[in-house]
């Protein structure tokens, strides 16, 4: 493979003091972008670039320059006469059948007997979860993160480690960084029905994740992007039939250094839920500096 070759004359991050680590990912994109748009990379490399592109505008532009090619390859197929009329008939019959079964399900769902039937997550169901189950689950999660935080007491040492690893001054105005806290996701799209909380000591790399309202028919993954430019898949979520998941996650670095932690559908470019630990910590730090206490 040839060495990294810049496809654009100026890298937008060249003026960024942290560009060296970001450049590693950008150079990887430069080396593999042609294979990426053809989906010819091994899965891990394919996902590595896909995740990087979600954050890096410069590499999105580079890759975007190649995406017309697969589209043109698709359009280059010799034009055939078209499918037989029976295909359209089967399609429309299938759609009619699905609409009928949806209407029947909606009607049945209004009767008490429907309570036991399996359902997909809905807005009202999420509300129920949030009203009844979420408080109890949060209590469990709080206990869990207290256990996580009990794994290490060396508070000052943790702060020093964090300073060294993030390469950024850590100024949390006297508030103990090692205090466990709950991070809550924000939905990444208007259709994203899930909600999740991450319990963690921000100075540590272990966290407990609880999520509700995920689509049980989809495979969900947890991806993270560190402020140093690293992006990794952390785990595949074990989502139960009700769309809930709870598991311990181990990150490569302390939680506080992550710009984003995302829950994404494996087959979908759109993230479902996003944690922003670094932003949340900075906001909390600002609140503390301003005299309020949010931690």
């Amino acid at each position, binding site marked *: 493979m040839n060495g990294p070759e810049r496809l654009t004359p100026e890298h937008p991050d060249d003026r960024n003091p942290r560009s060296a680590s970001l450049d590693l990912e950008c150079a990887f994109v430069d080396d593999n972008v042609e294979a*990426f748009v*053809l989906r010819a990379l091994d899965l891990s490399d394919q996902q590595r670039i*896909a995740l990087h592109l979600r954050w890096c505008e410069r590499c999105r532009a580079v890759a975007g320059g190649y995406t017309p090619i697969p589209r043109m390859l698709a359009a280059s197929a010799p034009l055939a006469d078209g*499918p037989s009329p029976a295909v359209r008939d089967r399609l429309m019959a299938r759609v009619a059948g699905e609409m009928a079964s949806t209407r029947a399900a909606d009607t049945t769902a209004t009767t008490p007997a429907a309570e036991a039937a399996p359902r997909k997550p809905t807005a009202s169901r999420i509300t129920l979860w949030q009203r009844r189950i979420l408080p109890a689950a949060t209590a469990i999660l709080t206990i869990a993160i207290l256990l996580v935080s009990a794994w290490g007491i060396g508070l000052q040492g943790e702060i020093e480690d964090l300073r060294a690893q993030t390469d950024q001054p850590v100024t949390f105005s006297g508030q103990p960084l090692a205090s466990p806290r709950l991070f809550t996701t924000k939905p990444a799209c208007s*259709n994203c029905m899930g909600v999740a909380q991450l319990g963690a000591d921000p100075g540590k790399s272990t966290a407990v994740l609880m999520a509700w309202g995920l689509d049980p028919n989809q495979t969900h993954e947890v991806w993270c992007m560190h402020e140093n430019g690293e992006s990794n898949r952390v785990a595949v979520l074990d989502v139960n039939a009700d769309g809930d998941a709870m598991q311990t996650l181990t990150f490569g670095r302390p939680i506080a250094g992550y710009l984003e932690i995302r829950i994404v559908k494996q087959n979908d470019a759109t993230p479902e839920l996003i944690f922003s630990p670094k932003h949340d910590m900075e906001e909390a730090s600002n609140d503390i500096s301003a005299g309020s206490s949010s931690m």
Partner: protein
Amino acid sequence: MSTVPQSITTGHEQDQAHRYPDLEDAALVALMAAQDPKALETLYERHARIVFSFALRIVGDPASAEEIVQEAFFRSWQQATRFTEGRGTYVTWLLSITHNLAIDEIRKRQRRPQRADSADPVLLLANLNDPGLSVEDRAVQGSWREEIEAALRAIPDAQREPIELAYFSGLTQREIADHLGEPLGTIKTRMRLGMRKLRETLEQREVGLT
């Protein structure tokens, strides 16, 4: 992106309210998201031929291609609400679904593992460079087809082959190297050179890499 018209009605009222063939794809997808089967039917009439041609190019037999066409349109019906959040043109999205289905079909036939999909690059980047009239539409209309074919012919066989094996057979670079009995590095280099040459050629021919 068009939104669902405010006065969605049903049945005959819809037929009177919308002149479906005159509506753009995005408006039809919005209607489809509101569970209007007439919108799907219109989109099918408009795009079934290119979807079938594309599927046939990959799987090789009409019966399988027809099954893929039906499945691709049905999935677009089911997922129409998600499309409205910005995924480029409908036909780009539809062909991406078709591509996945067709590649899975041939991998199944060859007893290769189904492809564990990552995000589709074309969809991931669709909002960057999807022109109003899509590349695919123009190709169907014939205005760009010759240009595209000429651009493909312009790159050496050794470079075009890995590109076509990746795209039309769903092979990874590693699988292509095994298939052709060439070192992996050679395949990577040929693919990169071929893609760059293809891009340059298309740009020179002004085939609209916008």
